[in-house]
């Protein structure tokens, strides 16, 4: 393998990894904080992709709306849609089944199905193209290598998200409350903090990030299909299992590892790529049965 191919695969792997991270970060934080596992998380990703599709298509007609502005706008709208869907999901579906893991799994799978059908109702059930806007196409020369600018953008956005999350978690009072709540929910309540409100906020933020991830995934694959929610679900679960349920750092490491491994293995043997994902997960679990950065619950 030459350097050029290596760097291309590296950047692609990082880009995909960043998308997985964005989708996974919310899910893992929600689990760490409230012990809720949302099997319907993929729905927010699918929603993000479709909302972005609508916004980008709507703006494609008028030329003065094209460009970074439209892209930013699509991202924002997708995130808002994700956050809203998240709040609805939490209030309508999850609230009655706190603490009941089996029911949570069932109810959230149900939510995924119903949500997917709703998406099909609104947007149709066939695959649709999602082309990145013109200004995102093209490549950048980095030494001997030609890299697609879109991928670099994705890596940059992913890093920005991670940095923003880290800042919020480590430097704000809200972040403090979240970190403490993840460790000991009872005590944070005994200190007077309305943990439910914090939770809804985190859930909404997580869904918004998932929506952003979905939009970027759709653009990366250059198409959307209603089943992407279910497809991405599996990958996101692998990420948070590897990273350790509840850890954002773990989600980042797991996501990047998954992205890189799939890309590199995929290059050598496309059939092995699917295996590689699961094999990686099992390898990590054998080494660290609770994931790379498990939470220490007090």
């Amino acid at each position: 393998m030459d350097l050029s191919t290596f760097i291309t695969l590296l950047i692609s792997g990082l880009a995909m990894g960043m998308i997985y991270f964005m989708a996974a970060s919310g899910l893992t934080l929600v689990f760490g904080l409230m012990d809720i596992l949302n099997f319907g998380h993929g729905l927010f990703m699918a929603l993000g992709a479709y909302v972005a599709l609508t916004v980008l298509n709507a703006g494609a007609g008028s030329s003065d709306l094209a460009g970074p502005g439209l892209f930013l706008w699509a991202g924002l709208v997708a995130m808002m849609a994700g956050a809203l869907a998240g709040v609805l999901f939490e209030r309508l579906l999850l609230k009655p089944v706190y603490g009941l893991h089996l029911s949570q799994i069932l109810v959230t799978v149900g939510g995924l199905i119903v949500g997917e059908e709703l998406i099909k109702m609104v947007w149709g059930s066939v695959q649709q193209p999602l082309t990145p806007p013109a200004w995102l196409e093209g490549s950048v020369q980095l030494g001997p290598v030609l890299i697609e600018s879109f991928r670099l953008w994705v890596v940059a956005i992913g890093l920005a998200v991670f940095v923003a999350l880290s800042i919020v978690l480590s430097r704000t009072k809200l972040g403090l409350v979240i970190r403490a709540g993840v460790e000991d929910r009872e005590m944070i309540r005994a200190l007077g903090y309305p943990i439910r409100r914090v939770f809804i906020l985190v859930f909404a933020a997580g869904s918004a990030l998932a929506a952003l991830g979905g939009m970027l995934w759709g653009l990366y694959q250059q198409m959307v299909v209603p089943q992407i929610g279910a497809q991405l679900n599996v990958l996101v679960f692998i990420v948070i299992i590897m990273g350790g349920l509840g850890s954002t750092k773990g989600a980042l490491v797991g996501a990047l590892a998954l992205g890189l491994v799939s890309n590199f293995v995929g290059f050598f043997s496309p059939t092995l790529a699917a295996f590689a994902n699961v094999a990686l997960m099992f390898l990590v679990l054998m080494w660290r049965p609770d994931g790379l950065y498990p939470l220490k619950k007090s």
Partner: protein
Amino acid sequence: MLSRLLSHDWPQGGLLRALLVTTAIALLTAPFLGFGATGLNVAAKVLVFILLVASFDLLLGYSGHVSFAHTMFFGVGAYGLALSMKHLGTTVVGMLAGLGGALLVSLVLSVLIGVFSLRVRAIFFAMITLAVAAVFQTFVAQQSWLTGGEDGINFRLPEFLQPSYRLIEGGLLGLDITGRVLSYYLLFVVVLVCFLALLRIVNSPFGRVLQALRENDFRAKAIGYDTLWFRVAASVLSALFATVAGFLLSLWLRYSGPDVSLSFELMVDILLMLVIGGMGTIYGAVLGATLFLLAQSYLRDLLALCFEALEGHAVAVLFDPDRWLFWLGLLFIVSVYTLPMGLVGKLRNKG
């Protein structure tokens, strides 16, 4: 006598009994009821899914494990028949060999999964089975040389099961006894036997221990039950019955492919059928499978009517016949909240 056959697990409640008996009779006489090929198709699928969902009930309803990898065993059974028919010749011996091979593969896989389930937390386990099932599906779809890839395998059955075969010239009670009809009754008999076996299993001491383990793992261990053995046994039994169900489906369709037996959609359908029908009851599988398959075929017609009536209004899209799963999904969610034991549970209490 009948009581012993049902392992003393009588379905309780008049309405429930009536429904079950009606369903049983309908299934028994389906070829003679004049529904045509489509109707017989639905009946055959109901049979297969009753067995498949009941096998899943053993795992989810009685042992309390959520596994998304159940379709794997279904697929193994389906491909077992397909491969043996393709490579070993269309004989009964070939069929049995295919079944035997499939059961063996499922045995090994289910032991591995069962042992693994004890090493990780339930939530982890559920997620991991999801990933494993996805990989298995991809693997099967990609190994075209073995499995026919996405297109699957079409095959022939032994002569007497082929549609062109005629057992009785001139028919019986006005019906042509074709290979198709024989296949149907083969399905019926096997499903009936397996269903009764499942009833026997869940009503045995083994079954009761499983339920105790489901309620309180810690306590059961304290009393001295070797959790490992029971968990693995439940996993294995559940897998074996699912394999048989897959074998039967493949027999009916004379086709095996990844969409038909391995998809996530199918896994979700199984969950839907079980939860709506009633977890932990075995009879729930009958109600759930029947309801689901009837909905799949006939709810669409109902929805089509509404759809036409609301033509032009935005809300019409809710009644798009292709979106029947939306309604079933809602029913599923409602069942999780309000019907802990599904329809069976609800009907049991009504006299």
